[in-house]
């Protein structure tokens, strides 16, 4: 696979290094001569000095046969233009842009960029995950269709602890695909798999059902009767009793 990395800063450098290790053909495009030299010295002849937004550079470096363009400069606007021109003028099948302002994710998507990666958003999500009132983290938004992969940590007090997956009233179009226990061991669940305290639940859901899903997995048990079946639990619709309480 031929991948072109636009931007030879820290992200571009380490990205190229890792990709070379996995036997991809990689080319880094970087404007700054000193950065180019450093990359050439350490990684070999895989760097081209030029502006990755300029059509002449793009032609010279073979955007036309690239399988993937990954724009990782520090400037969102440059990453956008590299990817857009790659798509429109060179028909590159896959474009990935680094973004700094997390709000640009929606814009980039709307403007045809296949995938965006935001360190800011990732760190924010990590912080939010650490906070008890934000136990749901979006891992990946699946392109088209409005589905996403999310992770929810099941608190020790949650009513779902000790229940089997088939007993849960998950919202529509939601499915649990992976459980990771406190020790970090993953389990691929069946309908009989039991939810344990502090499990990290990875699920596919629809964005509008995120809150209901979070509520199902984190709502406290009404009266703590660990392990015993609560007959009223599954009797009403998914949206009813699991609406998060006390959230503004």
């Amino acid at each position: 696979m031929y991948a072109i990395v636009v931007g030879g800063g820290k992200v571009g450098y380490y990205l190229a290094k890792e990709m070379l290790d996995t036997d991809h053909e990689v080319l880094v495009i970087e404007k700054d001569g000193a950065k180019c030299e450093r990359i050439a010295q350490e990684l070999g002849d895989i760097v081209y000095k030029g502006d990755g937004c300029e059509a002449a550079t793009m032609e010279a470096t073979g955007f036309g046969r690239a399988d993937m363009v990954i724009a990782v400069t520090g400037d969102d606007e440059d990453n956008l233009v590299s990817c857009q021109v790659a798509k429109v003028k060179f028909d590159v099948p896959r474009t990935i842009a680094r973004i700094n302002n997390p709000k640009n994710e929606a814009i980039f998507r709307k403007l045809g960029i296949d995938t965006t990666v935001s360190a800011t958003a990732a760190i924010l999500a990590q912080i939010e995950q650490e906070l008890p009132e934000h136990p749901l983290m979006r891992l990946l938004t699946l392109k088209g269709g409005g589905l996403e992969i999310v992770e929810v940590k099941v608190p020790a007090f949650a009513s779902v602890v000790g229940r089997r997956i088939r007993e849960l009233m998950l919202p529509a179009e939601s499915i649990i695909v992976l459980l990771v226990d406190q020790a970090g061991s993953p389990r691929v669940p069946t309908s009989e798999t039991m939810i344990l305290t502090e499990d990290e639940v990875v699920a596919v859901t629809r964005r509008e059902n995120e809150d209901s899903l979070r509520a199902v997995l984190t709502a406290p048990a009404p009266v703590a009767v660990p392990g015993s079946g609560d007959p009223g639990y599954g009797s009403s619709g998914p949206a009813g009793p699991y609406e998060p309480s006390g959230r503004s």
Partner: protein
Amino acid sequence: MKVIIMGCGRVGATVASMLDDDGHDVTILDTRIDAFRRLPAGYRGKRQVGNGIDQDTLARIGIREADAFMAVTQGDNRNVMAAQIAKQIFGVRRVLCRIYDPIREEIYKGLGLETISPTLVGARLLKETLDREPAPAGGES
């Protein structure tokens, strides 16, 4: 007409002043406050400090009510990005975008932006002027 101009360089300041003279409601945006020194003393429009590729900034300075948006910073890519946000996210009716690089200009014209490449316009104008014989200067001996 309510017009937002992004970039208070020579061109931005000049077009802002012209539109202001014509009685339009003009807002000019720049990341640096000292850029506004280029505006003439009589300019009555608004001055806003902020980054035009940030949709929050654009919303704050009233892009939702704007009839036109012009992107005239020094950076082609900044102009292209801001113009697309104005058009695609906020649905501004007229979006004008300056792009120095003629190739990028052609690409984004193809994507539906109203683009102007001063490089092409300037070069053509120079060539046409050269092609025309000047009127006899008279002073020559």
